[in-house]
């Protein structure tokens, strides 16, 4: 077995213990819960418009998704442009 594989197996115990702790803690304390206003509020949106153009190519990366992927992290704020109201 490779070094990487052995290390992964050795980490199984600590990772399992930590994972179980957090899973049970959250089940009891529900610190991760909040009102899902994005889904549960009545929103009427006009068709989304926009633009896109190719700017670069990535070759031979080992990352399975774009770095900093935040498409599903709606509440994670990014730089707010100055022309805001």
């Amino acid at each position: 077995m490779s070094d990487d594989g052995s290390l992964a197996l050795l980490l199984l115990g600590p990772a399992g213990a930590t994972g179980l702790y957090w899973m049970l803690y959250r089940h009891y304390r529900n610190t991760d819960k909040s009102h899902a206003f994005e889904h549960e509020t009545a929103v009427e949106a006009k068709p989304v418009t926009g633009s896109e153009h190719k700017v670069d190519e990535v070759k031979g990366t080992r990352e399975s998704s774009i770095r900093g992927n935040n498409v599903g992290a709606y509440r994670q704020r990014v730089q707010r442009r100055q022309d805001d109201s």
Partner: protein
Amino acid sequence: MSNAKPPSPPPLPPVSGPGSPRDVPPLPGQFPIDPATLPKPIRDELTAPDPVAIDTSAKELKDGANHCPKCGATDIRHKHGSDLLVCLFCRNEWQGARVEEEFGLGSGLDELSGTIIASGAKDIAADSAHLMSFKCSGCGAEVTVNTENQMTARCHWCRHVFGVNEQVANGAVPDAVLPFHIKKDDAIARIRQFVDKRQMFALKAFKEQFTPENVSAVYLPYMIVDGRASADVAGQGEIETARYTRGSGNDKKTYYDADVYAVQRHVDFTVDDLPLESSSERGNHDTSVNTNNIINTILPFDTKNAVKWNASYLHGVSSEKRDRDVAHLKPRLEDQLLSIARHQVVESVSRYDRGVRWEQESLDVHGTRWVSMYLPVWLYSYHQPGKNGGMLHYIAVNGRTGETMGSVPVQQWKLILAALTVGTILESIALWILAN
């Protein structure tokens, strides 16, 4: 002597300098400087119309007494499990007016412009007091109501019932109230069921002292906001063009090729009845110091069914007072509108199978409408002693839908022991695999 009219004197030059009218403070509503000479953003703000107010006050209840429309008695209660009021003298029942129809709050979202504030959501006066006194029209006695936590009181001499129905400037009287539908027995059953599923690792003292019968009905203050906004987001997205493996055996690794796109999206949208906590304490969702996120989780409510303010709905129910004004809540509203916009554009970027990294966003709020509302919550609380005053745990039940969420304090040593046991078993299996 000639009758000819003397010529009128030439107009005086404009007076300026010390002692001139320019030194006199401007009249209310006037600006000392001509706004036309100022930069556009400042000029726009100065000349913008004042927020429009929708008058939701109940003038017919101004004296505090809510009379039965049939017999005139003042002993009026909320009929549990419904939106009806009932007269305890003649048993007459009637329904409060829904604010959606009464004040047209459900329409016109597409045309919202500026900031429209209902009269119960206006700024809290700096000199406001908690105590309100009424002169009993039955016997002349003074009846005092503490608006901090209650809205009705009974004259202890002649049993006349009073309610704070006038929209006082201390944030205690909202525009609307959503009556309780879930009864106490139902709330107790839901709380018991919630805790029954969390027995094994619950704090021993919590289990010993658990008495869901102590649950209390509370009206919590919220701002219900309608809004019309536009948002823009910009960033980069990637589409996978190739996937291949290099190496062999255990060294086999996967590599990806992708095209990178600059992506921009724009969305115009309206939101209807977005609830925001208008109490600074309840609006603080820092889970390291409190469990208010539990109460937030039981949102939303069917706010379309809220009725015009009438203190009789609050008889025997405690209430919390609003201490946040519209201006305080605007940053949170903008934050939530941006999150909603980000959710709205997700489908339009589904072709970027390696995801999108949004880097910039902007928001233009065209119009908002703010209504202050009391929403019904059943609250069971348990104080866990500890550092910095300990932690107050809540189990909350939505007083309309019955949605239940809670925070149950954990017995740490039990939780750690369970985690270590499972970790040890997994590690033993891993070592056995490595040894063989």
